[in-house]
């Protein structure tokens, strides 16, 4: 237990543990100190200086985010000196900033804009520096637009990219008035190690880093009567969409989301959860097959441990960082891409629609999915498997544009076919979910019994943010055909956030870890903390999304992927068997080794 200390903020005694900053102490006392570069997920930068306060005995003001509280310290957050300094600072930021708010994607959801209105800026205290600057806009990439004219150089993105993701695609370049956030050799994002994870987008306080939005093309497709527009929605969207539409975090809005999508005019509202279940079947069999080839056939060409492949940010990361470990990646496409490939084949056949008239749209908690959909290998249906990827945020925009009162919408159900799902699919949205879903199925395939955990909740593999979770599941009393797995202790690892993924894979590369199965999600907390989710994000919000996901799982009538009736149907009518010829053609893929530079 840390020692406590008491300081006085604006005359109020506040008692906090040692090592608490003034900003944190003030928040505890419900005293609002504005801030910009500070973010709960990141290390303290102390560079915007918006959060300055007066401290007795100090000649200068101090940045409250960076200054630890001390016993007896007297802090004043609202003196004339503080107010003028803050106003100056915000005015300075605005003078360097392309403040053409009505033309900005973040209009209305911009931290700088909020501060500007709070400070009553508008007096044009200083000169407009923007016309003298040569700002670049990088829109050459499928997922993320980087607009330097909106950048306030708070370096949240730099810290995100380095600390949370260990990617370091973004860094500070130059100094003084020319200082900017840039990439290696100032190359566009698509030419550097950027994984398109979008964590920087989630944390950018302004419109400097935003997703490339596809709202208008999707509307056009909907309006086009010759097109059959199919939409799929990822598991993590339904527990976060509400946040962008006025509901508190942690609210499950599956039914309302479906209702909204139908009202927007999509011809078929389907569920990525369906292919999440399919992923489990394919990936589960792939794991078992790899284990058999290693343990029984003594095949040394088979790579173990096997790692999951649902997270496109993770895929791009491993392609750059550990290209020699690509054979360890499951060859399964992500659920989004399986869905896309099946939409223009299986679905088209069943519904009697010409695939060339199908527009396949996905709603994802993710920006990297936009890049994934554009990969040249994602055209196994003969067409672009997924035409447009929308983030959770873009869907919220469409709902607002359509004038729907989201909160009063009724709950509706997904269409069929490819609309049914299970609890196992829902938990794909959180770290540890794919692992848990795979175990629920694989264990049962091998033993004929349910996993030996109460209510199927395999809590040992449920990941936690900021840590790598390792668990061992002992396989006992197998069916005769899986005899070689009798007594095997299946070593599972779950990691979320690329910084943690890097550590796990380094161990694999060094040969210091003897895992069997690794689940990796690029984003903190898994897809629920994805780069396409509503802004803001912080540990508390993500924790609420996480409980909502497990709540949704518990509420599902079916909670094991292999029991999804539509999954059984697709194997019977179309795919044949897991890992079969058709599966390989449509549901599996290969990867591209890439360089760091």
């Amino acid at each position, binding site marked *: 237990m840390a020692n406590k200390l008491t300081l006085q903020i604006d005359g109020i005694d506040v008692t906090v543990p040692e090592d608490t900053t003034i900003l944190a102490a003030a928040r505890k006392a419900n005293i609002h100190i504005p801030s910009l570069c500070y973010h709960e997920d990141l290390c*303290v*930068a*102390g*560079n*915007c*200086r*918006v959060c*300055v306060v007066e401290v007795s005995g100090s*000649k*200068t*003001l101090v*940045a409250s985010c*960076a*200054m*630890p509280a001390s016993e007896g310290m007297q802090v004043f957050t609202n003196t004339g*000196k503080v107010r*003028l*300094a803050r106003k*100056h*600072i915000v005015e*300075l*930021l605005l*003078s*360097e900033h392309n403040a053409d708010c009505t033309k900005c994607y973040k209009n209305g959801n911009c931290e700088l804009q909020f501060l500007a209105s709070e400070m009553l800026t508008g007096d044009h*205290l*200083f*000169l407009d*520096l923007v016309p*003298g600057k040569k700002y670049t806009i990088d829109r050459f990439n499928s997922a993320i637009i980087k607009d330097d004219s909106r950048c*306030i*150089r708070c*370096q949240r993105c730099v810290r995100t990219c380095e600390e949370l993701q260990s990617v370091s695609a973004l*860094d*500070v370049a*130059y*100094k*003084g*008035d*020319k*200082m900017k956030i840039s990439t290696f050799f100032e190359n566009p994002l698509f030419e550097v190690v950027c994984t398109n994870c979008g964590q920087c987008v989630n944390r950018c306080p302004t419109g400097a880093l935003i997703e490339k939005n596809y709202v208008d093309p999707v509307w056009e497709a909907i309006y086009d009567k010759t097109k059959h527009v199919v939409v799929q929605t990822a598991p993590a969207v339904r527990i976060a969409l509400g946040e962008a539409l006025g509901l508190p975090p942690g609210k499950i809005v599956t039914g309302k989301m479906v209702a909204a999508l139908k009202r927007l005019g999509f011809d078929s509202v389907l569920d990525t959860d369906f292919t999440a279940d399919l992923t489990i079947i394919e990936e589960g069999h792939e794991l078992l097959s790899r284990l058999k080839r290693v343990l029984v056939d003594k095949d040394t060409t088979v790579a173990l441990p096997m790692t999951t492949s649902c997270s496109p940010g993770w895929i791009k990361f491993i392609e750059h960082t550990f290209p020699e470990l690509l054979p360890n990646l499951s060859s399964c496409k992500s659920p989004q891409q399986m869905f896309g490939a099946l939409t223009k084949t299986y679905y088209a056949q069943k519904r009697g629609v010409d695939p060339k008239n199908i527009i396949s749209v996905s709603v994802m908690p993710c920006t990297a999915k936009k890049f994934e959909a554009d990969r040249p290998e994602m055209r196994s249906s003969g067409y672009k498997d997924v035409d447009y990827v929308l983030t959770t945020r873009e869907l919220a925009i469409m709902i607002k544009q359509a004038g729907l009162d989201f909160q009063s919408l009724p709950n509706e159900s997904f269409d069929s076919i490819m609309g049914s799902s299970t609890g196992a699919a829902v938990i794909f949205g959180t770290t540890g979910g794919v692992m848990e879903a795979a175990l629920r199925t694989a264990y049962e395939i091998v033993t004929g019994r349910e996993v030996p955990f109460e209510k199927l909740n395999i809590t040992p593999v449920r990941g936690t943010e900021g840590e790598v979770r390792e668990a061992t599941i002992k396989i006992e009393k197998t069916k005769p055909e899986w005899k070689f797995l009798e007594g095997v202790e299946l070593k599972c690892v779950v990691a979320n956030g690329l910084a943690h993924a890097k550590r796990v894979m380094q161990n694999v590369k060094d040969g210091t870890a003897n895992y069997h199965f690794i689940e990796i999600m690029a984003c903190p907390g898994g897809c629920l903390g994805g780069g396409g989710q509503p802004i803001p994000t912080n540990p508390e919000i993500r924790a609420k999304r996480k409980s909502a996901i497990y709540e949704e799982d518990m509420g599902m009538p079916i909670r094991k992927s292999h029991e999804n009736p539509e999954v059984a149907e697709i194997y019977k009518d179309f795919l044949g068997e897991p890992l079969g010829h058709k599966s390989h053609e449509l549901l599996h893929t290969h990867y591209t080794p890439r360089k760091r530079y």
Partner: protein
Amino acid sequence: MAELVQRVDLIFGEYSDEKYKVLEESLKRSNEDIIKDILDSGLRGRGGAGFPTAIKWKYTAEQPVKEKYVVCNADEGEPGTFKDREILSRVPRKVFSGMAICAKVIGAKKGFMYLRGEYRFMLPDLLKELDEFHAYAKKLKLDFTIEIRMGSGAYICGEESALFESMEGKRGEPRNKPPYPTVAGYLSKPTVINNVETFVNVVMICRIGPVQYRKLGTHDSRGSKVFSVSGDTPKPGIYELELGMPLIRFVEEFGDGDTKAVQVGGASGFCVPMKKFKDTIIGFEGVPTGGSMMIFNSSRSMYNVLHNYLDFFEEESCGQCTPCRVGCQQLKKGIQAVKRGDKPVVYLDQLMKLSETMKITAKCGLGQSVANSFSSIVNNFKEEMIY
């Protein structure tokens, strides 16, 4: 030279007949004794900020950490300052001795000299001298080595925490303080970082004793100081003078008879106009300086002088914090706009307020000190800003 100012010969003077004699003797003394001598001498840091050296050493010595460092800040980048170059080329032995004494006192085994990028030409000589130092250290059974690290030309890397970042291979940006270097400096270990001249002063205090040393200077500014004199003077150069002299004496000695202002302490220092020469003391009780003394005569436009400083700051700000990065640009563009007539004269008041904000909100000394030259030039030479 006339007897207007007290010349001193402490820094550059011969200090012993035998090489590393002072170091050898100091090594035999207790750490407490040495710290007490430095404390009694009243020595304050010679880089410009003037933090009491003994306190810095004492805090670092007290840290219950095994790994500690001594760093010599030789990133002499303040415009108009060139005294460290002279010290390092004439008496490098004194600098190394000072660092070694510090290492003994705080318990460090490793020292670094962060040498300004533009001083690379001095490196061969310094390395030769350093080899000799290491040989003596071995002879004296002192477990302490010094390594020279080159800067790359950024002014900001003279700021101590940015200097550490640079030494660690990172971008040279100032850190948040606290923690201070005495607790977490290089590699986040307790570190004493002092200016070149400060280390030399320590050696001289050890040599002549605090009583003798205190005879130089004034109550708040003990000892002597090496000045870099430049500008409109018939005798530019390096001069070691007693601290605490009135500026008027300095101008009488070094001016060309037409001096209208002296910039004390470089671009980040203060501009003193003629009418204040009499009442201005050069020292911590008056206008402190890291050594730079720039003399301007009536032929100089103070607008151009200020513009030049702002050009410098605009480029040399690390760009990290808002007040410094944007403030410098605004001040420069602001005086241009007033000069052109695009902004009214009262806009200068707005800029003065902005410089005040920079002074109290910038993250490090660079941004905080831009206001020094800005306000002192604008206040004293307002008409030159306008016409």
